[in-house]
C-alpha cells in the first residue's frame, strides 16, 4: 500500500466510522430539541404519574447517574396527615426514591428541617415510613450538620445550610403545592427553605429575593411538584379538609422558575403573581415564559 492508497482508505474508513456517531449526535440534538421542558401528568396513582412524567422529559437517568448520592427533599414541614395536603404525598416520595435507586443511585437520602416537631411530622405525614420502605435513608436533621455557607446572592449573603443537602451529587425537590401568607404560594423554591438552619423567620422580610438566591445556590437537578392534593386556603399548615382540592396532577421540570410558574397556574394565578418567579426570571435562574416552553401533558 502506498501513501496515496493509505490516505484514501483511511479517509473512507474514517467517514464510514464517523457516520453512526454523527447520526446519534444529531438524533440526540433533535430529541433534546423536541424533548419537553416540562411534563404534566394527570392520573390517580402518584407512582405511575411520576414515572410517566419523568419518561416524558427524558427519563430519570437524565438526572440521576449510577453511583450518585441523591437527596430527595419533600415537604415534611407540618404535623398533618397526608390527606390535609400540608406535606408531600408519601406515595410520590416513595416512587421517586425507587426510581432513583433503579437508576443506580448509590444512596437516596430523605430529610427535611420541619417547623413542627420533626418526630411528629415524619411520622404523621407518612413520608418516613414510605420512603424508608422504598429504600431511602430517612433521617432527622442533625444540628451539627448545618454549616454557615457563602451564598453570595443579592439578598441572601450567607446562611447556615444543611451540609448533606449541599454536598449531595443530586438534589430532587418535591414540594407540595399550597397557599402561603407572604409568598402567596409555596412551591419548589419555597420548599428549599427546608435545608436552611438558623432563625428562618427573618427570611420573610425579603422572602422572594431570599428564595431566588437560595434556589440558585442549592440548584436542584429536578423539581417535582406534588399537586395530587393542593391546599387552597389556610396554608401552609392547613388543617381543614374543605381547603384541600384533589388535582391528581404531577408537574416535572428541571427549570426551577418554570416549575413554580406552572405551579401558579394550578391555582388560577399568573406566573408573574409570584414574586420569586418574577425575580427568578430577572436573575436568569430560569424562565417564567411558559409559552416558550415545550410542555407535554399526559392523562393516564
Amino acid at each position, binding site marked *: 500500500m502506498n501513501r496515496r492508497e493509505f490516505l484514501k482508505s483511511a479517509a473512507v474508513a474514517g467517514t464510514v466510522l464517523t457516520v453512526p456517531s454523527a447520526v446519534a449526535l444529531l438524533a440526540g440534538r433533535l430529541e433534546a430539541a423536541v424533548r419537553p421542558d416540562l411534563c404534566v401528568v394527570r392520573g390517580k396513582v402518584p407512582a405511575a404519574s411520576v414515572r410517566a412524567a419523568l419518561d416524558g422529559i427524558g427519563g430519570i437517568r437524565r438526572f440521576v447517574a449510577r453511583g450518585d448520592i441523591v437527596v430527595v427533599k419533600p415537604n415534611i414541614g407540618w404535623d398533618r396527615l397526608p390527606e390535609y395536603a400540608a406535606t408531600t404525598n408519601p406515595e410520590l416520595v416513595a416512587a421517586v426514591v425507587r426510581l432513583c435507586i433503579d437508576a443506580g443511585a448509590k444512596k437516596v437520602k430523605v430529610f427535611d428541617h420541619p417547623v413542627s416537631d420533626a418526630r411528629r411530622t415524619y411520622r404523621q405525614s407518612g413520608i418516613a415510613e414510605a420512603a424508608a420502605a422504598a429504600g431511602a435513608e430517612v433521617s432527622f436533621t442533625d444540628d451539627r450538620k448545618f454549616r454557615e455557607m457563602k451564598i453570595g446572592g443579592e439578598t441572601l449573603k450567607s446562611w447556615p445550610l444543611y451540609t448533606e443537602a449541599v454536598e449531595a451529587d443530586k438534589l430532587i425537590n418535591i414540594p407540595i403545592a399550597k397557599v402561603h401568607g407572604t409568598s402567596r404560594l409555596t412551591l419548589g423554591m419555597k420548599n428549599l427553605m427546608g435545608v436552611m438552619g438558623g432563625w428562618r423567620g427573618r427570611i420573610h*422580610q425579603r422572602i422572594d429575593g431570599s428564595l431566588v438566591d437560595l434556589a440558585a445556590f442549592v440548584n436542584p437537578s429536578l423539581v417535582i411538584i406534588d399537586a395530587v392534593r393542593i391546599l387552597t386556603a389556610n396554608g401552609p399548615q392547613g388543617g381543614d379538609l374543605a381547603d384541600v382540592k384533589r388535582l391528581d396532577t404531577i408537574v416535572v421540570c428541571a427549570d426551577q422558575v418554570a416549575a413554580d410558574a406552572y405551579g401558579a397556574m394550578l391555582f388560577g394565578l399568573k406566573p408573574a403573581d409570584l414574586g420569586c418567579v418574577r425575580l427568578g426570571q430577572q436573575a436568569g435562574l430560569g424562565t417564567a415564559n411558559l409559552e416558550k416552553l415545550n410542555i407535554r401533558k399526559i392523562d393516564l
Partner: protein
Amino acid sequence: MLRNLRRTSQSVFLLIFLYLFLQTESKGANDIGYPVKVFLDADPLLWLTTLLATRSPERILSLALIVIIATILLGRVFCGWGCPLGALNDLAGSLGRPRRKPFGWFTLKYLILIFLVAASVFTLQAAGFLDPLSLTIRSLALAIYPAFSHAASALFDMLLAAQIPMLTDASEAVYGLLKKTLLPFRPPQFHQALFLGAVFLGILGLNLVERRFWCRYLCPLGALLGLLSSRALLKRSVSEGCDGCGACAASCPGGARPEMKDGWSVRECVACMNCDDLCPQGAVRFGFSTKKAAALDLGRRRVVASLAAGAMVVPLVRITPLAKAGAADPALIRPPGALPENDFLRRCVKCGECMKVCLTGGLQPALLEGGVEGLWTPLLVPRIGYCEYRCTLCGQVCPTGAIAKLGLEEKAKVKIGLAMIDPGRCLPYAHGTPCIVCEEVCPTPKKAIWLEEAMAGMNDGKAVAVKRPHVDLDLCIGCGICETQCPVLGRPAIAVTSLGETRSKDNRLLLR
C-alpha cells in the same frame, strides 16, 4: 443468697423505671405506647393524698392497692426490693462508709407523713414534693437527665471538632448509637435545673452521712409503708444461737436495730435480708408469724403539732392575691386539659412527667407563678416552646388526672390562653417591614391570625404596603407557636397569656 436475690430485684425495678423514663418521649405517634407512669400509679402515698385532696371515689381502685396489700403481708418490701430511689440510695451508700453514729431521727418521717396527710385532708396536695417516686422522676427529668445529655453532647462535639483520626470516627459511631438509645431527641433545658439537681444529689449524698438517710428519716412513703407493716406476717426471728456479735447492726440499711433481737423495729425494716445472710451464727431467719409488733410512739405533742401544721399551712399558702381573677399571673399558662386551677392543684404531684414528655420543651416547672402551692407544677413558656397542635402526650402521662387525657378532637377545642399583638414591636406595624411568621405557623384549621393589607409610613416620607397580623379571639387557642416563632427576639411582638383559657370561668375576655 437472699441479698443477691434482693439486689437483682432492685436492679430489675430500677432498670424498668429508667427504661420507662427514657420511653417518656414522643416517637411521633399520637399515643405514648408505654405504661410510663406505672410507678406513680402504684404509689400508695400519692394514691392516699390525692384521694383525700380530691375526694374522688373513682380513684379508689389503683395499682397502689397491690403495694399496700404487699406491705401489709410482707412489710416494707417495696422499700427494700422495688423502690428506685431506695436502689439509688443503696448505690450511693456503697461509695463510702459513714463513720458517725446514727442520728436516730426515725420519728421525723412519720411526722412529715402526718403533716402531708393532714394537709391533703384540707385539699392541699403537698405530698408530691417529698414523695420518693415523684421526686426521683422530677429530678431526673428536669435536672439529671438534661445534665447528662448536655455533657454527652459537649463531649462528642469536642471529639468531632478535634478530628482525631480513628478516634473521631469511633466517637461519632458511639454518638449515633447513643442518639438512638439513651440521649433525648432534643436537648432538654429547664428552669430551676440547678436547684432540683442539687436537692437530688444532696439526698443521694446523705447516704455518706448515714446509709439510706432519706429512707430512714425523711421519706413519707416509707413512713406510710412502715405504718402498714406493723402487723406484717413476714417477720424476722433470732434463735438462741445469737452471740450478740453485732454483725447485723452494721449491715442494716433501715437502721432497724436488728441487734436488739425481738426488740428490733419492724417498721424500719426494709426486708433486705442482710442480717439473715450475714449472721455468722446463722441465727437470723425470716418467716411468717402473727406476733404483734410494739406500738409506735411518736409522742402525742409531736403528732398534734404535725396535724395542726398540716391544717394551718393550707390557709397560709392560699391567702395569696394570685387566687383573685385578674390578679393571677398571666404567665400561668397550663397545659391543655389541665383542670380548673383549684382542682388542678389538688391533683398535680409535681412529678415532671408532662415536662419530660413535652415535644417542644415549652412545659417548664413553675416557681411562684401559681403560688407556693404551685411550685414545680407545669406551665407553658411559649418563648421556650409551644404546645404542638396535635399532641396530647402530657395528658397521657399525667398520673393523677390533673391534666385530663384528651382526644385529638377535644384537644383542638381547648384554649389554654390567647395571643395578643404588641404593635410597638411588630415589624409590619411599627417598622413597615414584611413578616407573616405568626400567620404562617398558626395551626388552627381556619387560621386564628389574619392579615390586613395596610400602608405603613416610612422615614423617607413614602408609604409601603404591608400585611398586618390580627388575632381572631374566637379562633385562637393560645398554643403559643406564634410567640415561639416570632422573629422579634427577646420580648416578642406577639405573646400568649392565660386569658381566655377554657378551664376557667373567670379568666375570660369576651361576653360569649
